């Protein structure tokens, strides 16, 4: 955003980082109405552009057909004809093969899946007793597979439509080049471009396919599941599930059955998730910085040794250290035993059995997990702070505390702003620490189904799928996690001092 700095903006440069943050925070909300207007205007413009784009798209399609030679016209039905007519054998073959594969797939499988997508199947698989008294299994529909392959088919159709469009576009381009007597691109040119000017297509092909098949399709599928009643009572193939519209989302607002309702549990776990993410991020951040400063202090020897000791914890696979520590703090674990032997306590401390204790213990142990990582990171950044800043501060008589508040901290916050954001959202989804330490427990039965008191949304989602087989509601939680993370990211990204909207640190 290019904005003329006002007097208030210049004044703001003298504030300390927290005041700056507060100011940005207020400004964000002050500018919100304007942004909304801007949003609607740009949505309007987008539609305008889209409509014109679509209009032009169809006009081009029709015009290409009308003015085209016979092979162009035939390309609308048999893809690749136009390429063959221009001796672009490789391209023609690819188009033709793709179309053949598509037709083959649709006739033998795709058609069925697509047709069933609306009902998600009507006949469950049944065990039927035949006349001789044998139990035989009569296979019926399988909602899960219908949904899965239905989604796959839709993706395939979209891919075909796009290829079809490309095929026609190429006809148009070829005819134009023909008229102007220019050279066409043949297989040799195509292949050469793929390692040179269009090398990005080669490099991107595999990662993109991977992402589409293993990330996008599953996510689309799971979003769709949120609109079905796929749970333990509707598990194919013996029981089918069905579309239920927004019923699952409706449960988020249904508070009638008190704290064991889905809505109340969701609210409680969401609040704890946010609290956890806040503490996990900032305790680590500040304590990690402290340790880094301690190690990097002038005159401290064996810097590398201290660092290595701490870093060992990052290295050892988390599940080992976390599981071991979880046992250490168990009811008759090492810690409780030691305390009792020393006569500090009479009965074991309820580290994992009391909700409040569990939450605090988790946060404390997370400090143990996170500090080494932060320490490494901060050490690297500290070295980048221009030394003359400290020199001149020292000359001006600033004590170490002042140096920290005026130089180190602002610099760190400035540089690591984006990191703090990703760390916050990462902690919201920090499965390992919670699951391996508490398993989501203690389970007091106060919450919905098998939800425990220290569950994050993400561990709740996990136990909901694995323990309760409540896939539909789990999908709802997943979507909500996404919405919360996206919302926080958008808001924070607009507030933090990032390289985008602030000149340099000075």
């Amino acid at each position, binding site marked *: 955003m290019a904005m003329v700095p006002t007097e208030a903006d210049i004044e703001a440069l003298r504030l300390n980082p927290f005041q700056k943050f507060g100011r940005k925070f207020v400004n964000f909300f002050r500018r919100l109405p304007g942004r909304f207007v801007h949003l609607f205007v740009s949505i309007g413009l987008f539609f305008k552009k889209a409509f014109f784009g679509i209009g032009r798209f169809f006009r081009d399609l029709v015009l290409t057909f009308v003015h085209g030679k016979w092979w162009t016209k035939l390309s609308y039905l048999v893809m690749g004809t136009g390429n063959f007519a221009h001796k672009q054998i490789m391209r023609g073959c690819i188009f033709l093969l793709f179309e053949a594969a598509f037709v083959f797939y649709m006739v033998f499988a795709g058609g069925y899946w697509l047709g069933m997508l609306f009902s998600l199947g009507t006949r469950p698989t049944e065990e039927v007793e035949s006349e001789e008294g044998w139990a035989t299994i009569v296979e019926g529909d399988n909602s899960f597979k219908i949904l899965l392959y239905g989604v796959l088919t839709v993706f395939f159709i979209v891919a075909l439509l796009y290829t079809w469009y490309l095929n026609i576009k190429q006809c148009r381009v070829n005819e134009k080049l023909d008229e102007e007597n220019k050279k066409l691109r043949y297989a040799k040119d195509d292949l050469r471009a793929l390692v040179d000017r269009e090398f990005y297509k080669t490099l991107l092909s595999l990662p993109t396919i991977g992402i589409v098949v293993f990330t996008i399709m*599953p996510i689309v599928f799971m979003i769709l599941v949120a609109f079905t009643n796929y749970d333990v009572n509707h598990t194919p193939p013996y029981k089918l599930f069905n579309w239920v519209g927004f019923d699952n989302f409706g449960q988020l607002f249904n508070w009638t059955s008190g704290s064991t309702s889905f809505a109340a549990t969701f609210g409680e776990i969401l609040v704890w998730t946010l609290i956890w993410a806040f503490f996990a991020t900032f305790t680590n951040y500040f304590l990690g910085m402290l340790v880094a400063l301690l190690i990097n*202090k002038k005159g401290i020897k064996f810097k590398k040794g201290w660092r290595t000791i701490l870093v060992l914890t990052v*290295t050892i696979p988390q599940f080992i250290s976390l599981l071991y520590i979880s046992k250490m703090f168990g009811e008759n674990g090492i810690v409780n035993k030691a305390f009792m032997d020393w006569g500090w306590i009479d009965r074991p401390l309820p580290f994992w059995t009391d909700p409040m204790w569990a939450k605090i213990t988790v946060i404390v142990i997370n400090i143990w997990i996170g500090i080494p990582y932060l320490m490494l990171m901060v050490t690297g950044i500290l070295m980048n702070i221009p030394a003359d800043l400290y020199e001149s501060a020292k000359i001006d008589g600033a004590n170490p505390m002042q140096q920290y508040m005026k130089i180190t901290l602002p610099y760190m916050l400035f540089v690591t702003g984006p990191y703090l954001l990703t760390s916050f959202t990462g902690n919201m989804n920090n499965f390992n620490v919670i699951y391996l330490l508490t398993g989501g427990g203690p389970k007091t039965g106060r919450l919905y189904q098998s939800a425990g008191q220290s569950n994050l949304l993400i561990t709740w989602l996990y136990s909901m799928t694995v323990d309760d087989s409540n896939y539909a509601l789990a999908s709802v939680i997943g979507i909500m996690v996404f919405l919360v993370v996206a919302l926080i990211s958008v808001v924070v990204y607009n507030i933090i001092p990032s390289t985008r909207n602030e000149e340099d640190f000075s």
Partner: protein
Amino acid sequence: MENNKNQESPMEKLERGNQKHGMGLKARRRIGNTFSYIGLVLISIIWITPFVFLVLQSFETAGTGWSASIIPSKFGFDNYVYLFSANADFNRWYFNTFIIALSLCIGQTAMQLAMAYVLSRFRFKMRKKLMNLMLILGMFPGFLTMIILYNVLKDLGLTQANAVPGLIIVGIASSGMGYYVIKGFFDTVSKSLDEAAMIDGATRAQVFVKVILPLAKPIVIYALLTAFMGPWGDYVFASYIAFGNPQGYNVAVGLFQWLTKEQIPYHYTHFCAGGVVVSIPVITLFLMLQRYYVEGVTGGAVKG
């Protein structure tokens, strides 16, 4: 600069400051450092203790069950012998994990390098959209896709006993989305290098392989290292895919179920020994390549 206005020279001012406090700079620093050393020693003890306990308990040979005493009542290598004996599944888990780690190490790094290079060097129509898409996809919790991936892999026969290839495919397939750190590094490599090579007649592919990759050695090592370390701690997805079949477990799943209520009376000290054995290769690698790891962590944090 403000301090130009000062009449005193900087050194004079410093000295005056010291006199005011009535103590030499050296003496103050020595006291400060003493406290720092005490702090550091305490911190080190806190961080090291669990591992010392783990190692000590792994030598307990009096029984294999749960025990809250740190010092083994009988000292020996029985637990380690058990891990690699024929009737323990640990061999298999270790081998599985090693294969997965090795494959991911190569596959993930290749995917991420490709993605990072493209997004750093090429400007094409879909570039910004692609980056935004990956950002948004990254905000969906990964578990959401677990159920469907499990079912797809099951249809392909890649679950339970055959979980290893399944885990490798899933691990590599979407790894392109983790391109950020490497792209940050590529962005710092001057584009004039590419241009110079292309003027000399190199294709884009040759530039990538012969110019950029050799320069990117530190970040490639970082990517290899993180990709290799990941699978040793991967529990969630591995446990879901290998569901109940010890043949397909990796070390995390295997060791985890040794600590369940039913197993812990028989396998607690085995878990400790297993933990030590699993940590050794990872720690060794890490200590050897620490420099690169630190560079990656710092770079990744700054570029976000």
